[in-house]
Each structure stands twice: as structure tokens, then as C-alpha cells.
């Protein structure tokens, strides 16, 4: 059967032609900041890698406190290329969150959340939360000492929030302490709950992006802008990035294999120098630096509330910005720079101290 006949047959049933036409229409504006357009797709690609390697790991992983560590050890030592799949999964998670941050901040600074793309921004912030949730839940799964204590500290911080804190802590931990119940629960979140929600939100996010097309910097609105076809030009360029990402992941897995450490022991004291993954570090470091008591309030609670309010403001950003007022634009740009510098600075401090 020739390819053309098959295409015709499928098209009669699936209406491929209209999809193809839409795809052919998709264009990417070319300007000084076009490079940032790559990062959304890169994040999606890395997410795909996570799903793939995650499913493979699922074939051997065992989510109980008695067997989790041994099963990961098994994957890394006995299963052929297990070391590769596992290290790729761990490295790709970190790379994905990094590209996610870059994507988010590039959208912020280009103010791509302007109407009509507000909902795209909202789904995007939601995706940030989901990604961080993936990272937090996945980190515990090897059930090693570092992860055990990181989870303990992390859920404890969540528990400090007034009113909802304690029930949240119990919900996350599956009890009052971090135990095998926590592991099972986190596993459920990581492989079922979060993937289901993320799929829905990602699809929404992507549909919205296709609907509205790529946003261009405000200054270029109304002016003629060179465009590049998505298929095949931009897509092939995207592909180059993805291929290089695969290379980077392979290199990281082979040269800097992800550590396994020692099995978690609930009764052993916390190892020295415990700290969360880098994407939590700036918050963790901030909390560490806030004095124990500020006026009459618990410093830690204030810190968490501050981050909560900050997050909320970040979420409703499109509604706070007003493009008509140039002073507000300046304010937002400044705030953005401060936020980036703060995050970077505190992450570095967190690493060094």
C-alpha cells in the first residue's frame, strides 16, 4: 500500500488534512528575543523523558519502606542499563525544572501574559506547582537517608502554616510522622495523581498556546515582524535542542551518576548538612535566615506566609499588570529582576553554607 493511499484513508476518518493545514499555518515570530521560545518546548520534551524513564523504572520499583531502597539498588546494579535510566530520570527532573524556570521568567519579562493570554499564564503557574510536586514526591521514592530527612523537614515546614498546616501535614505524611505510609502515598501522587492532573493542564496550556499563537514583545506590536514557519523550520531547530538535551542527559548519567546513599533509618539522627533540592533551596535558606521571632510572631510562619502571598501575587500577575501605565511596567520589570537575583543569590548561599 502506498503512503498516499494510507494518508487518504486516514484522512477520511480522522480529518488529518485540517490538522495539517493548521500545523502548516503555525508561525513563530522572529525578533531579538525569539530564542526564549525554545524553552517551553524543551520543558515539554524533558517532561516526556520523565514519563518514559518513569514508566521504565516502574517495571522494577517497589514502593514500600522495606523494599524501596533495595529495589532502586537492584535497578542500578542488576538491571541492564538500569543505571542509565535511573540517572537520566533524576537528572532530567532537575533540567526540566531549570528550563521551566527559564521559560516562566522569559514569559514574565516579555510580559507574554498580557491579554488574551492570561489563562495560559494561570495554567503555567499551576504547572510550576505540579512540577515542584513531582520533584518533592519523587525525591522520597528511593527511601534513602537524605530523602527521608528532606521530606521530614519539608512536610514540617508545610505543617507550620496556621490553621491548614496540621491537616496538610497529616495529609502529606499519611500520619503524624514520615513512615512507609508516606512513601506509599507519595508514590501514588507521583505516578497517578500528579500525572493525571498534569496531563489535563498541559493539554489545556498547549491548546491555548496554539489558539493564541506566540506572543510578541509589546514594543513590536503592530509593527511588521518576520515570521518563520513552525513546520519544518522551527520544529527542526527545536529538534536540535532536544537532541542536544539527550546528549547532555547521557553525559550526566555516565559521568555524574546519581547517588543512592544509605537506606533511611527513622531512628538515626539527621545527617549533617541536610538540605532540600536546589529548586527549594532559596526558600529554605530564607527561612533559615529569618530570626526566630519577628515582633511577636513566629519567624518561620511569617516566612512561609510571605512566600504564600508572593506565590499568590505571582499567580494573579496578569490581572495586576496594566500595560497602559509605563511606570507599572517599570515596577514589574524591577520586581522581576529582584526576584531572579534573590532566587539565584540565595540558592548560591544555600549551597555554599
Amino acid at each position, binding site marked *: 500500500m502506498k503512503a498516499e493511499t494510507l494518508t487518504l484513508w486516514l484522512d477520511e476518518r480522522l480529518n488529518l488534512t485540517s490538522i495539517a493545514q493548521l500545523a502548516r499555518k503555525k508561525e513563530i515570530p522572529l525578533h531579538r528575543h525569539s530564542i526564549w521560545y525554545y524553552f517551553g518546548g524543551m520543558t515539554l520534551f524533558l517532561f516526556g523523558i520523565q514519563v518514559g524513564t518513569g514508566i521504565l523504572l516502574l517495571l522494577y520499583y517497589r514502593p514500600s519502606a522495606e523494599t524501596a531502597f533495595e529495589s532502586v539498588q537492584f535497578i542500578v546494579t542488576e538491571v541492564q542499563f538500569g543505571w542509565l535510566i535511573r540517572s537520566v530520570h533524576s537528572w532530567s527532573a532537575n533540567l526540566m525544572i531549570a528550563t521551566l524556570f527559564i521559560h516562566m521568567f522569559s514569559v514574565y519579562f516579555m510580559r507574554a501574559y498580557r491579554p488574551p493570554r492570561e489563562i495560559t499564564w494561570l495554567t503555567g503557574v499551576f504547572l510550576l506547582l505540579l512540577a515542584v510536586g513531582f520533584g518533592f514526591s519523587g525525591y522520597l521514592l528511593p527511601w534513602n537517608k537524605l530523602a527521608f530527612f528532606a521530606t521530614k523537614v519539608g512536610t514540617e515546614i508545610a505543617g507550620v502554616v496556621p490553621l491548614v498546616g496540621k491537616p496538610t501535614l497529616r495529609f502529606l505524611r499519611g500520619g503524624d510522622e514520615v513512615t512507609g505510609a508516606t512513601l506509599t502515598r507519595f508514590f501514588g501522587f507521583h505516578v497517578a495523581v500528579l500525572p493525571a492532573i498534569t496531563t489535563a493542564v498541559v493539554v489545556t496550556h498547549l491548546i491555548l498556546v496554539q489558539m493564541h499563537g506566540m506572543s510578541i514583545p509589546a514594543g513590536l506590536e503592530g509593527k511588521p515582524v518576520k515570521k518563520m514557519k513552525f513546520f519544518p523550520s522551527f520544529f*527542526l531547530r527545536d529538534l536540535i535542542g532536544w*537532541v542536544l538535551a539527550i*546528549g547532555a542527559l547521557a553525559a550526566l*548519567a555516565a559521568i555524574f551518576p*546519581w547517588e543512592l546513599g544509605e537506606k533511611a533509618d527513622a531512628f538515626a539522627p539527621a545527617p549533617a548538612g541536610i538540605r532540600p533540592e536546589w529548586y527549594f533551596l532559596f526558600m529554605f535558606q530564607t527561612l533559615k535566615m529569618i530570626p526566630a521571632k519577628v515582633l511577636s510572631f513566629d519567624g518561620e510562619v511569617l516566612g512561609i506566609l510571605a512566600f504564600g502571598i508572593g506565590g499568590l501575587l505571582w499567580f494573579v500577575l496578569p490581572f495586576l499588570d496594566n500595560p497602559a501605565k509605563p511606570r507599572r511596567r517599570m515596577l514589574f520589570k524591577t520586581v522581576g529582576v529582584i526576584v531572579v537575583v534573590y532566587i539565584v543569590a540565595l540558592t548560591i548561599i544555600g549551597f555554599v553554607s
Partner: protein
Amino acid sequence: MKASNSFPYNCRKLMRVFALAPSIGLLFFVSASAQKKNSCVDCHSQIEGTLSEPVRLSKGDVHDSRGISCVDCHRGDASSDDMAVAMNRKKGFIGKPRSSDIPGLCGRCHSDATFMKAFNPSLRVDQEREYSTSVHGKLLKSGEQKVATCVSCHGEHGIRAVIDPQSKVYALNVAETCAACHAKSDYMKSFKIPNDQYDKYRTSVHARTLYEKQDLSAPTCNDCHGNHGAAPPGLASVANVCGQCHVRQAGLFQSSPHKTVFGLMQVGECVQCHSNHGIQAPNDELLGVGDKSACTQCHSEGDSGHAAAKKMRERIDEISASISGANEILDRAERSGMEVSKPRFDLNEAKDALTQSRVLVHAFSPAEIDKIIDSGVDVSNKSYEAGGAALNELSFRRKGLAGSLFFILFLAVLIYLKVRQLESRQQTLQNES
């Protein structure tokens, strides 16, 4: 007895009790004070200074808590407040007993099996007899007053059971109790024996185990010298004493050529190489023909013992080096991210073989240790190979990576070229239109 439930009868019963109450009360009062009137305590508790010490110490005293009090040892009359009556020597009162009388004084009860059975059936009753065989006992009998008697170690008042951590003879306190005399050079001047035993002992591995690890099974003075029959073990019986714990070494020694030789040469078993009080954890330097070795004290170049020592040391060094080599490569593999817990576990067998070979040294025959060292080296080599395999696997992965990277980069470049090509074609097409 149904009638007893009726009201008037109850009332009468109650009245009877109430009537009796005062008399019962008086009885109690009387018996409490006659809970042995102890005039000794009454007076001595009021005297300031050392004379009131026995009263203060009696709290917690193992005798006092069983109703054995002052007069049971010192005699006299505790019912009288009159000192002349209470402490009448003519009527048998013993003030401060003479040292030479003490073993007999204590032995009056402690050697009486029937008496002791009432208090602690499992306590030994031969301490006095044992004491008479000890150096202390023999010296005491010969008239020497400056020796340890029962009270020197156990105390006279405020005596506590041996298992009581506050007792002077509790495992952790024994050495200090002995050292109270034995470490004082002026006190011990007249006895021509060294006084460095305690100092040496505190540097020993036994003392460190006992005091730092709180391992009460570690030996202190009495475990080797005996408590009541305290005497240094004879030269030919040291191995038996050490062998209480170090069974294998003692057994091997006793079937070795050294046993007879040491006996003939009047050389102390075990202690000749390991010392008696300041016993250090032995290391391999003790074996062989180096300057720190014990063997060269007797053996010199040319004799068979010298050769045997040299051979044994060589073999032990061989397995020791093999194990550190294996450890080192496994460390390297682990640092590079490879998982090597199984070879590490297997290496334990080699470490066990090394420990065993060090024990087998006490047979003083290279043939004895050969077999175990061979198997240990074998295991160690296997672990080394596993470490090597892990490093090879790592290198294989890196080569695989390099190869894949080549293809990946190649692919990236080709896609780029394709893009360029497609766009130039588009450009051409556009130009033509």
C-alpha cells in the same frame, strides 16, 4: 455469723477496736524503739568528725539493711547508753580490730555456710580460706600489718554488694581500689615489687574497653589475680588465666613448642610478648623480625624460630595488603558512583581470615596459617576483581557515552544543515515567485 451484720453488734465490735487502739499503739511505739535500741548509733551520730562516719555510712550498707549492726562485729552492749557498759572490753567489746584479726572477724559469719544460707544461699563461703593462700594473707600471717585485709577493699562501714556500682569492688572500681595501695610508691617501698601496674593497666586495651566502652566483661585486677586469693599467676599458668577468654590462643600456645621452652627458660607465657598490665591491642609489628617485634627477643638470624617468624609475618602482610588493595579499588569504584556493596560484603570473609590467621600465629608454625591465608587472599582477590570489573564497566559506559555523543552531535549538526538547506530552498522558491 449473720448476727454480725446487725447494727448493735457492729457498734460493739467497733467499740472494742477503739478500746484496744491505745494499747496497740503503745505496743508499736515500744517495739519501734526497741527495734533494737542502738546506743552506739545514738551516741556516735552526735560526735563530730570521724567517729560519726560509721553511722553516716551505714545507710545503704549491705549488712545494716539486713539487720546486722554494730554489736554484731564490735560486740559490746547496744542497749546501754552508758559508755562504760556499752563499750566494756572485759565483757568482750572490740574497738577498732587489729588488721590480723579482721579475716577471722569477718569469717565468723562469712565462712559459716549455715549462717550465710539464711541471707544469700549462693554466696561463696570460702573467702577466708582463699585469703590465707593469697600474698596478702600469707604476709598477714607472718606478722606484716601493712597488707590488705577484708576491709581494705570492701570497706568496714558502708559496705555495698559487688554488683552495686558504688561498691569499691564493682568492676569499674576494682583497679582504683587495688591502686590505693599498690600505686603508692612510698607505701609500697618495703615490698620489693613494682608499683606501676595501675598506670600501665590504664593504658591497656582491657582498661580502655572497660572504662571507655563500659564493657564489663573486660578484665580488671581480680580477673587475672583472683580477689580473695590474690596472687600473681605462676609463670607456667599465665596461659590458663588469659585462656579464660582467649581460649584459642591459649590452646594453640599450649600445644606449641613454646610451652615447654618457656617453662624451661622460666619465661612468662603470654606476658613475655604481650606484657602483663599494660597490654596493648596487638598489631602486626609484634610478629616477625623487625625492631618492634617480640620474636627477636629470643630468636636471632639463622635459627628456625627466626625463619618461622619472618615467614609468618610475610604471609600476614600479604593478606593484609591484599585486603587494603581490594578496599582501595572498591572505594574508587564507589566514589565514581558504582554500586559495590556485594564485593564489600564478600571482603568481610577475607577480613575474618586475617583475624583468624593472627590467632593461629600462636601455634608458631607457618604451616598452620598457610591454609587460612590462602583462602583469605583468594576471597580478597575476587573482591579486587569485582572492583576492577566495576571500574571497567564505568569506563565502558564512558566509551559508550562518547560513541553515542558522537552520533547525537552528528545528528544535531545534520539537522541544522537540513534546516539551512530547506530554508535556502524556500528562499529560492520565494525569489522565483
